[in-house]
């Protein structure tokens, strides 16, 4: 996998791979996909016992490219490169790391931007709604394909943490440990409300065209930009924004009565614009709905304790003090359920001013906890019966 090394602690140049599932794939919504493809990357080597596999689950706007570079002249590495690589908390010297683009994504896996083999046309808005449970079921098939009976760890932040939890519930024998970072067992009304604003911004853009924008060679850039802007605010904290932007002006001068632009405005516009160019609107709608619908307790009489009583993984829950999108209290709910169900769990609440975004940042204590937990998981692989 590793052809070159851009820096000594990078996984280097990586090449995405494609897993094709040829048979019908039933979804939770009742519809069936006529097969699917998942694009994924791997870092590190699978050991001879095939016991050291680690799955990374991505969040709302993430993808399979978690670490390393696709080409020597790439400006930026994968989205979690700070955390994934040789000697890093998710250590490619220890683990065989698999990172997959979720079904319904827009970075190579089957989704709204791929062709529906039944019609020969783009799926677009006709792509069926998928759930976190569907993602787990599709990733199980990928694990089978890779010869992984049991993951040493499944790790995810935010929506990725929800996948790790669903994995542990649905496939208890195939998950040795689960790391849920800045996650929740289900969204709050406030969370769903923010997602709905994002969806309304997209669907009310005239260029959305009922989701058939690609067929008409248009794109709801404005809607996507607004969706990303409101989302981005919820990923930061009030304090973090004050520190990063304050009330600094990008242009103009208030005292001269000119039109002014605050730094924070230009930042959000930039983030929104760049997002609208790299992310598909239908995928965004699909991912936010998967978030909203996620509620594993609902299958167990609304008891999270009963839901997690099925698990056999060792859990690690990490949350951040200023995260108000997926607050520490939401992680605590999962911790309490795991204790009540007598499961193995540890938890840490990391001091950080960066809100929900903290899970993507190299915060020393966060990395100590994550690296320490995974190191222990790796040690125990060798002692396991």
């Amino acid at each position, binding site marked *: 996998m590793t052809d070159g090394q851009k820096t000594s602690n990078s996984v280097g140049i990586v090449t995405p791979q494609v897993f094709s599932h040829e048979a019908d794939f039933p979804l939770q919504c009742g519809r069936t996909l006529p097969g699917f493809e998942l694009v994924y990357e791997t870092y590190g080597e699978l050991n001879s016992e095939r016991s050291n596999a680690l799955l990374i689950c991505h969040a709302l706007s993430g993808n399979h490219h978690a670490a390393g570079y696709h080409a020597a002249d790439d400006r930026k590495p994968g989205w979690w490169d700070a955390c994934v690589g040789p000697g890093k908390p998710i250590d490619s010297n220890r683990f065989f790391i698999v990172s997959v683009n979720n079904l319904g994504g827009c970075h190579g896996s089957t989704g709204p931007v791929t062709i529906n083999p039944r019609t020969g046309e783009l799926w677009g808005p006709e792509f069926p709604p998928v759930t976190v449970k569907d993602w787990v079921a599709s990733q199980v098939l990928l694990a089978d394909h890779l010869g992984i009976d049991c993951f040493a760890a499944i790790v995810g932040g935010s929506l990725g943490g929800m996948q790790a939890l669903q994995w542990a519930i649905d496939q208890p024998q195939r998950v040795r440990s689960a790391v849920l970072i800045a996650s929740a067992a289900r969204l709050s009304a406030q969370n769903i409300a923010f997602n709905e604003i994002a969806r309304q911004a997209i669907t009310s853009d005239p260029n959305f065209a009922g989701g058939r924008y690609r067929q008409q060679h248009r794109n709801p850039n404005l809607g996507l930009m607004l969706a990303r802007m409101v989302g981005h605010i919820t990923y930061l904290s009030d304090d973090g924004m004050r520190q990063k932007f304050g009330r600094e002006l990008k242009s103009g001068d208030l005292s001269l009565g000119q039109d002014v632009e605050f730094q924070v405005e230009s930042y959000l516009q930039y983030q929104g614009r760049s997002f609208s160019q790299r992310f598909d609107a239908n995928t965004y709608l699909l991912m936010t709905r998967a978030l909203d619908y996620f509620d594993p307790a609902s299958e167990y009489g609304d008891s999270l304790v009963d839901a997690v009583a099925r698990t056999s993984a060792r859990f690690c829950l990490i949350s951040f003090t200023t995260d108000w999108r997926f607050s520490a209290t939401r992680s*605590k709910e999962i911790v*309490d359920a795991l*204790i009540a169900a*007598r499961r193995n769990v*540890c938890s*840490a609440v990391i001091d950080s001013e960066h809100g929900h975004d903290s899970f993507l940042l190299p915060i020393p204590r966060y990395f100590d906890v994550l690296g320490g937990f995974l190191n222990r998981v790796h040690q*125990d692989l060798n002692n396991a019966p």
Partner: protein
Amino acid sequence: MRPDLKITAELIKPGARVLDLGCGDGELLEHLQSHKGVNGYGLEINPENITNCINKGVNVIEQDLDSGLENFADSSFDMVIMTETLQAVKAPDRMLREMLRIGEQCIVTFPNFAYWRCRLHLAMRGRMPVSRHLPHNWYDTPNIHLCTFKDFEQLCDDNHFNIVERFMVDASHNTRPLINRFPNFFGAFAFYRLGREPS
């Protein structure tokens, strides 16, 4: 192993479900897990201690004891342990009631303020005792609720806590006949195992 933890460990039955309040670096829980097949959780707020617990494979939960234990159900543990921490919590009486709500029994260990060295220090020097036994100055001590054995037993009496077992040791954690005779004078540290109803 820390001598007080060794004594505490001996009070715990194999296979028990244990909650350790203020579990430190996880030394006690690690010992109980590997030697007594105990299923345990520890609460801790010190980041370094939490990392040490995680490295040991101990179930450590980041939670501040002073902000309450409502998240733990009644009788959800066999034993709730608090070693050398009772004197540092905001409301020791409420803490003990909570410990006996969550656990069938609890173990608390704490320093005795009526230990003869303390008495001597206060009587002769007229200053707050500082020693190996109580190593902090009055202004920087975490020990905001120091008590004597007699005070503690009065609290147990007032709250109808059943003292199942108790014993005292000197500052080096050794038992001595003289301590049994005059515990509140010669005992430096106490180990109490409490239950709910008086027998």
